[in-house]
Every structure is written in structure tokens, then in C-alpha cells.
């Protein structure tokens, strides 16, 4: 196929490309189950777009995919610096993919800094593709390389492909008469074209996307498409080193359905609106104050006005949660989201929501602490804060998302529990979950179960702390309702009138009912089942939150090798599932991997007196599959 007519390619163009290349290079493509590619360069190099497009083409070709973007901590660091490096990782394959991958099979580095920062993650024997022309003395210095890694034997352990991508791109776009600065901007598309060739992927979606994006500047679109095609052709023709072959990654055998990719951020936003709809609530009042990595959720919600979302960018996190509580008091679904320091500021008001027994959802996108810590890095160290980080005995619901797509279900569940039990719900996610993306079978929202709320309207026998005998929830009686005028607040309330009470017995009774109300929710949530393995045996690996992927894969690998190990993953942290004691009791050893100093394990030990063993990683990074696998082997062999 010619570079000028890419559009004749199509869904099965990967196959076409495959034949083409066999003809061209006489070498057959090799088959791969799964591959991890990382694109890395300056923030200015369009790395994120390149990566997402590659992921998209892979998904369209039927692969299972997981991606993770790695933005620099600085807003826009000077070009060529190590701290300015932006990266995007794509893990795709014909098997099911649940993490963005342990080690890199291919690293595409647009400059020395990108190589410097990312090389450590490339597996021995992996492929590194660099743009020679960017390895100038100046750039080498910025990346503080004494000598060029292209000349010394830094890259000896790897398969290195040096290409003058810049020149090749410039040639490809010559005809469109762009400045060489503009031309350089297409480098990423040239490299994308090459990688799409290498994995036998179509360019169709990318071409469409470019046409759309540059609708107003067709010449830019054409130039970019030319660069894309040139990279592809470069692979097809014999210009590549002879030891380089193309690969075939077959379609994964995944659940049939209509797919899209979602980040944890998207999924949470979708889940919240779907949950409010299922509850029959016309409005979500999302009060928040920007903070990394929770801000994207504020941005996403701000785009959902047509779905009943009002966003309020408050002056601080305290005003944010208070506005959300006020909104719930007035009959909307009050939601607030934050991270680290911002969540700490919400603890006083969260206590009021517990005492006043109002629905509220607090999304905690955890990041590495303590204090400001490492704002862009993931951690799970706020679990104990979620459970105990308020003054007084103030029980509430805590649930956690396990994967980007899982956040949809968890967000809906948060709405159900908050409204059904008139309680705050803390929804735990983290920097990894919020930014990572994976394909998602779009659910038929109409078909999902609903859980309509009923606002109290009957004045007969009403008082604000009258309890539903089943749920122990108090009535949701909202301003505007004649005959239900009442006063609530943070002072202790009388069990049988709702008025202020300093009575000793009453306080004991109210403290107990608040605790029982939450504890009894265990009856209304699913029994805990292992994700993998038997419901008893020598070892269970117990996790929560974003460690799902690596634990699942690590346990699976161990099981494939014959180890009798189970994976148990908790969505419900407060209350715990009612059969958890029994389930955990069935294993000889309990191993609890967490991205913190051992928080869930301390809860399990205290709750069930089981000798759970912590396995902690506090590096602001997800576990690797291999780390989990090794931890299992080590414990089962000794």
C-alpha cells in the first residue's frame, strides 16, 4: 500500500500490512502474546497523544490494553531536562491485560533525557529506538551523560535501533513546505507509524483523528499523515536492520460488546451520574477544590452539566465538603473529591455528616504522603485516615475501586449506600487509578438496577431522627417540604425527638446506633469471594484498591506454576463483608500487599486476630507482577 492512500486500510489492515511486509522483507512476523511499549520524550513532543493513539489502534485491532501516562512533576520543565521527561506506556496483548506492565519490551526515546530516565525499566534484551539527531552534546549534558550512550556500551544489553527520525520526518513532510521547526513536530507521528508497522496495526483511526484535529489546518493534517505513513513504510521496506522483524499480536479473547477506553477519572464521573440517575436524584452538587490527582475529576464533572451536575469550585476543601453537605441537606447528591492534604481538611466536616446523618460521597484520590509528599505519585496510605481520621467515634462507609473501569461500579455503589443509609461514603482511589486507562465494555445503563430514594413528605409522626427499622437510616426530609420543618446540627441529638440532648444514656445509645447502622450494611453487600483460587488453602493474598492488577496477575502466574494460592480483593473496607472472618480463617497464611506501611493488614489483625503478614511497597509506584509472584513463591517454598 502506498503512503498516499492510507485510508484504504481498514479494520483488517493489520493483516494486510503483515502480508505486505512479508513480501517486502521476506521475513515472517513473529507472534507475541503481549508487549509493553513506552514512548518517552519532552512534554512538547506529543508523547501522550502518540501513546494513546497506539493504544487505540491496538484496542481497535482487538487486543486487550492497559495504559499509563507519566507526566513530569513540573508544569513545563525546560526542554531536554530529565525532570521534563513525559512518558506514555502501553501494555497490549492477546491475553488478558490487567496492568500497564512490569518491564518494557520496547522503549522509544526522543532524546537523551528520555533514555536516561526510562532505560532502567527496559528488560534485558529489550528494544530501544532512539532519534540519533537529538543526541547532541547540549542534550547529552542536560541529561548529564558524560559520553553518548549511543557510543559507549550503555546500551549493550539491549537491541538498539538508531534512526535519524528528525531527518526522516523532515523529508517526509518536505512537500508541504513547513518550517523545519514545524516539521520536527511530526517526529512523534513518524515513530508512531513505525511502531504501528512493527505490530501490524492499522493507521486508520489515527488518520481520521488527525483529519478531525486539524480540520482547519489541512496542510498540517497532511504533513502529519505523511510522517505517519513514512514511518510505516520505513518499517515495511528493507531499510530496517536485518535483525528487526515485525510482530503479530492476535486479538484477545475478551468479552464481546461495545468498547471504549476509560481512565479511573472517567469511570468515576460516569458512575456518579449513573448512580444519581439510578437513585432518581435530579442533581449532583460536586463541590471541590483543585488538587493533584483529583482535579481531573472536577474537570470531568464540570463537563457533565447536561446530566444534572453542578460543579462548585470552592475557596478551599473545607468549603467544598461543606457545600456538598449543604446540597445533600437540601436534596441533591453532595459529592466532594480531593487528595492528601485536602482530604485532611475535610475531616471535621465529615464528622458533621456522620452526626447529622446525611448522604455524602468523598472521593479520595490518594497520593504519596505524608504532607505534600510526592503529589503525582500513587500510594494507599490514607486507609486508616478514612476509617479513623475523625474526632469521636464516627463510623462511615469506606469502599475502594480496583481498576479504572471498576470505578464505575464502585461510584454507583457509593451513591446507593450513601442515599439508602443516609451516611457519608468515602470512595478510595489513587493517582494510578485516576490516570490509568483500560478498555471497558460499555454497560447498558438502562438495564442496571435502580435504587430510588424517597424524600419524606408525611408530617405524621415525623421527627428528623426517626429511623427506618430495616436500614436504621433517618428520613431524608428536605427544605421546601411543608410540615417537616426541623433543625439539625452537630450537637448530640435525642434518640426519640431529634432535639439537642446532653443526656448520658442517650449519647451511649446514639453512639451505638450510629455504629450498628454502618455495621449492618454488611447484610446489604455481596459475600466476599476469591478472585482466583480456592476458598481455603495454604495462602491467600489479600488486597484492596489499585493493587488489583498486579496481585491478580502475580497470583495467576503462581497458580499456573502449580502454587495453591488465592487472590482476595476487598471493595468494602467499612464495613467488611460479613463472611470475611470465615473466609480468611480458611487459609494458613494471609499476605497483604499494600502501597503503604501496612494499613489494611492492621485492620484485619485487629478485627479477626489473624496473623496477616504485611507486604509493603512505598515507592509511589504500583507493584510489579513479578514482585507479587516472587513474594508468593518465597512464602510457599520456605
Amino acid at each position, binding site marked *: 500500500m502506498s503512503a498516499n492512500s492510507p485510508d484504504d486500510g481498514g479494520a483488517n489492515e493489520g493483516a494486510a500490512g503483515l502480508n505486505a511486509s512479508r513480501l517486502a522483507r521476506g521475513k515472517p512476523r513473529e507472534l507475541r502474546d503481549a508487549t509493553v511499549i513506552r514512548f518517552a520524550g519532552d512534554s512538547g513532543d506529543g508523547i501522550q497523544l502518540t501513546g494513546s493513539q497506539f493504544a*487505540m489502534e491496538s484496542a*481497535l485491532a*482487538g487486543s486487550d490494553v492497559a495504559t499509563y501516562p507519566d507526566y513530569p512533576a513540573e508544569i513545563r520543565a525546560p526542554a531536554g531536562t530529565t525532570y521534563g521527561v513525559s512518558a506514555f506506556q502501553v501494555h497490549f496483548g492477546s491475553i488478558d491485560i490487567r496492568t500497564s506492565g512490569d518491564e518494557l519490551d520496547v522503549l522509544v526515546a526522543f532524546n537523551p533525557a528520555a533514555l536516561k530516565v526510562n532505560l532502567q525499566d527496559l528488560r534485558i534484551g529489550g528494544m530501544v529506538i532512539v532519534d540519533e539527531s537529538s543526541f547532541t552534546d547540549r542534550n547529552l549534558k542536560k541529561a548529564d551523560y558524560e559520553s553518548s550512550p549511543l557510543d559507549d556500551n550503555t546500551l549493550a544489553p539491549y537491541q538498539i535501533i538508531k534512526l535519524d527520525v528528525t531527518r526522516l520526518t523532515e523529508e517526509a513532510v518536505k512537500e508541504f513546505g513547513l518550517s523545519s521547526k514545524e516539521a520536527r513536530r511530526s517526529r512523534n507521528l513518524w515513530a508512531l507509524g513505525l511502531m504501528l508497522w512493527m505490530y501490524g496495526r492499522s493507521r486508520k*483511526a489515527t488518520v481520521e483523528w488527525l483529519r478531525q484535529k486539524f480540520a482547519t489546518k489541512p496542510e498540517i493534517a497532511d504533513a502529519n499523515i505523511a510522517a505517519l505513513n513514512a514511518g510505516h513504510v520505513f518499517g515495511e521496506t528493507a531499510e530496517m536492520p536485518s535483525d528487526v522483524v515485525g510482530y503479530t499480536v492476535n486479538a484477545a*479473547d*475478551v*468479552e*464481546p*460488546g*461495545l*468498547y*471504549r477506553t476509560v481512565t479511573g477519572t472517567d469511570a468515576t464521573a*460516569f458512575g456518579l*451520574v*449513573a448512580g444519581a440517575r439510578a437513585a432518581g436524584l435530579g442533581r449532583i*452538587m460536586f463541590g471541590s477544590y483543585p488538587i493533584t490527582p483529583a482535579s481531573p475529576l472536577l474537570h470531568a464533572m464540570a463537563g*457533565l*452539566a*447536561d*446530566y*444534572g*451536575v*453542578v460543579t*462548585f469550585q*470552592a*475557596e478551599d476543601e*473545607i*468549603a467544598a465538603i*461543606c*457545600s456538598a*453537605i*449543604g*446540597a*445533600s*441537606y*437540601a*436534596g*441533591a447528591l*453532595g459529592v466532594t473529591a480531593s487528595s492528601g492534604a485536602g482530604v485532611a481538611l475535610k475531616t*471535621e*466536616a465529615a464528622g*458533621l455528616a456522620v452526626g447529622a446523618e446525611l448522604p455524602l460521597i468523598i472521593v479520595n484520590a490518594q497520593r504519596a504522603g505524608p504532607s505534600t509528599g510526592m503529589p503525582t505519585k500513587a500510594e494507599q496510605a490514607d486507609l486508616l485516615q478514612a476509617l479513623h481520621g475523625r474526632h469521636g467515634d464516627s463510623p462511615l462507609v469506606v469502599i475502594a475501586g480496583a481498576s479504572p473501569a471498576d470505578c464505575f461500579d464502585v461510584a454507583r455503589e457509593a451513591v446507593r449506600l450513601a442515599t439508602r443509609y443516609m451516611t457519608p461514603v468515602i470512595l478510595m482511589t489513587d493517582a494510578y487509578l485516576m490516570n490509568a486507562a483500560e478498555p471497558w465494555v*460499555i*454497560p*447498558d*445503563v*438502562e438495564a442496571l438496577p435502580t435504587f430510588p430514594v424517597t424524600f419524606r413528605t408525611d408530617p405524621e409522626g415525623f421527627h428528623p431522627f426517626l429511623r427506618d427499622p430495616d436500614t436504621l437510616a433517618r428520613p431524608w426530609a*428536605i*427544605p*421546601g*417540604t*411543608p*410540615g*417537616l*420543618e*426541623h*433543625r*439539625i*446540627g*452537630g450537637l448530640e441529638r435525642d434518640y426519640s425527638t431529634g432535639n439537642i440532648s446532653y443526656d448520658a444514656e442517650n449519647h451511649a445509645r446514639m453512639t451505638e446506633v450510629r455504629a450498628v447502622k454502618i455495621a449492618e450494611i454488611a447484610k446489604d453487600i455481596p459475600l466476599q469471594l476469591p478472585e482466583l483460587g480456592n476458598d481455603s488453602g495454604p495462602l491467600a493474598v489479600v488486597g484492596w484498591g489499585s493493587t488489583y492488577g498486579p496481585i491478580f496477575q502475580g497470583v495467576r502466574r503462581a497458580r499456573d506454576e502449580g502454587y495453591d494460592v488465592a487472590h482476595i480483593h476487598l471493595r468494602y473496607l467499612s464495613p467488611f463483608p460479613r463472611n470475611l472472618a470465615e473466609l480468611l480463617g480458611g487459609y494458613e497464611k494471609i499476605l497483604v500487599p499494600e502501597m503503604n506501611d501496612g494499613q489494611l493488614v492492621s485492620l484485619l489483625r485487629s478485627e479477626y486476630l489473624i496473623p496477616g503478614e504485611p507486604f509493603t511497597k512505598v515507592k509511589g509506584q504500583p507493584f510489579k507482577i513479578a514482585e507479587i509472584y516472587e513474594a508468593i513463591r518465597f512464602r510457599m517454598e520456605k
Partner: protein
Amino acid sequence: MATATTDTPLKPAAFESDQEVRWCPGCGDYAILKGIQKTLAEVGAKTENTVFVSGIGCASRFPYYMSTYGFHTIHGRAPAFATGIKLANPELDVWVVSGDGDGLSIGGNHTLHALRRNVNLQICLFNNEIYGLTKGQYSPTSRQGTLSPSSPKGSVERPLSACSFALGVGARFVARTVDTMLKHLVPVLKRAYQHEGASFTEIFQNCIVFNDRAFSDFTDKSVAAERQVLVEHGKPLVFGKDNDKGLRIKPGTLHLEAVTLGQNGTTVDDLLVHNETDKALAQLLVAMEPPDMPVALGVIYCDPAPAYEAEVESRLEGASDGDIGELLRRGRTWEIGNR
């Protein structure tokens, strides 16, 4: 303000709750409570559409004594709760009752931003220049040198002027009245209620236990007439027992001076006429202090602008029941068939 309808207006007593009022005997809060109940009756407010939101403090006990909806929240945050309530249901009449500690110390920032955003709330600040509920520590409005349990040698801090603060942060309605001046308080609060957007009303309130007579220098019957100027839009700024004094621009300056009518030929026509839309005038009026100048009371500044929640609603462009299925399918999707 919002949907007050006037069919068979309720009597003041209809706004009393069944709870026993528990302020100290002689507390200025009692008079304010009566005044607000009278105000609600006169504007024809409905108990079910009215919400009183407060923080923590003696003043903040207020909602318990009203037969309306009420939310006694946490210290200093009432304006944030009230903002959320308005964003959930703009139809409600929402009043914020706060104290000088609640609204200007811990809650200063929320008062600031509610005023700046112009959320349609009636913010009533009961200023007794002391922390009442916590037993008498000085507050951000206490005069310098105030002796209190936390300032045994006299407080060092300079007091904040509540109204200068409100004007400085962009409030579009600023008024001032006194707990015991029922005839003045009610009409002022009616104006506050009728004002679209955030209204800020400072009510000087006597804490008989911890700061008694804090305002007697201009509220005592004996001196009131000479020490107060009751401002009214479009009327000359006259004061004094015999209305024989007034305010005018000190010629060639940006300042006010008090003059005596008749003295070297000054007549009422030389006096400044109150213009409640003139912010510069408002800033000068709220800064006046006895003995040299009278204390300005009444609606000092009122220059309406669209309310925050109204503009938020307009941004929503109606549709809020969008098809979520369609939302999820939007953008790049792909079908995977059975294999």
C-alpha cells in the same frame, strides 16, 4: 431573597419553634430573634421555604428557635453550607446567622467568598465584639486593649471593621443596625431579604455577660441621636437630637465632615445626600467613629448584580437529564463480536 408569597402571611409568632430559648437573660440575641421573626412575617415568608444556617456560637444557636428549616453546622463554615443549599435548590430563602468569631475569625474566608460570589443569601452577623459561647475571649472585632481571659494584659490586635471588610471584598449590599432598635432593624432586614444576591448586615449585639455596654457610647438613649446617623437613600445625611447636624464633603477632599446647620450659613442643601449605590461614600460612612463622627446605621450600600446561583443555573442551559447511555458511547468506541 426568593419565593416569598403573600397569601395569608404568617404572624411573627408562627416563626417561633417549640424549643426553649437558652440565651442568658438580657442577651441582645433575644431582641434580634423577635426582629427577624417580625421581618419574616412582614415579607410573607413561608416556614417551609426558609432555611436558617449557622455556625457555632451563642448567635449560632439561632436556628433552634425558629419554626423554619434550620442547620446548626460547624464553626465558621455556614456560608459554605448555605452556598451548597442554594446550588441544590435556588428557590429556598436562605439566611446565614453568624457571630464576629464565627463569621470573621475562623469563618472570615467563607464570608469573604460568599460575598464575592454574590450568592443570594441574607448574611446576618451578630457582632458583640467577643466570643460569647466560649466564655469571653476577645474577638477580631474587639477594641484594642480588651481585657479577657486570653488577654489578661489587654488585647494587642487591631479590630476588623466588619463593613469595611465586606465592601473591600465586593459585597453589593452592606447594612448596619442595632439589636435593641427594633423599628430600625426590621426595615433594614426587609431590604436585605429583598436584595437579589448576597446581603451583609452587621447587627451590633450586646453580650450582657462578657462584654456589656460595648456599644453604649452610641446606643445609649442619652447619646444615640448625637452619635448615630440613620442613612436613607436619597435623603440628606442629617443627625442630632434636633436634626441640626449633618455630613458633607470636606471641600476639595475625598473626606466627610460633620457640620452644624445654621452655623456659618450651612443649610441642608450643603449636606451630602445619601446615595446607596456610591461605594466611595459607603466606605467613608462605615469608617466613621464616635466621638468625632456619628456611627452610620441603615442600608449603607446597595448596588445589585446578578446572583451567583442564578448565573450558574443560566450556564446549565436547562437540560439536566441527558442520555447517559449516549454519553458513555460518545467518542471512540469499537465492537468486539463473539469469537
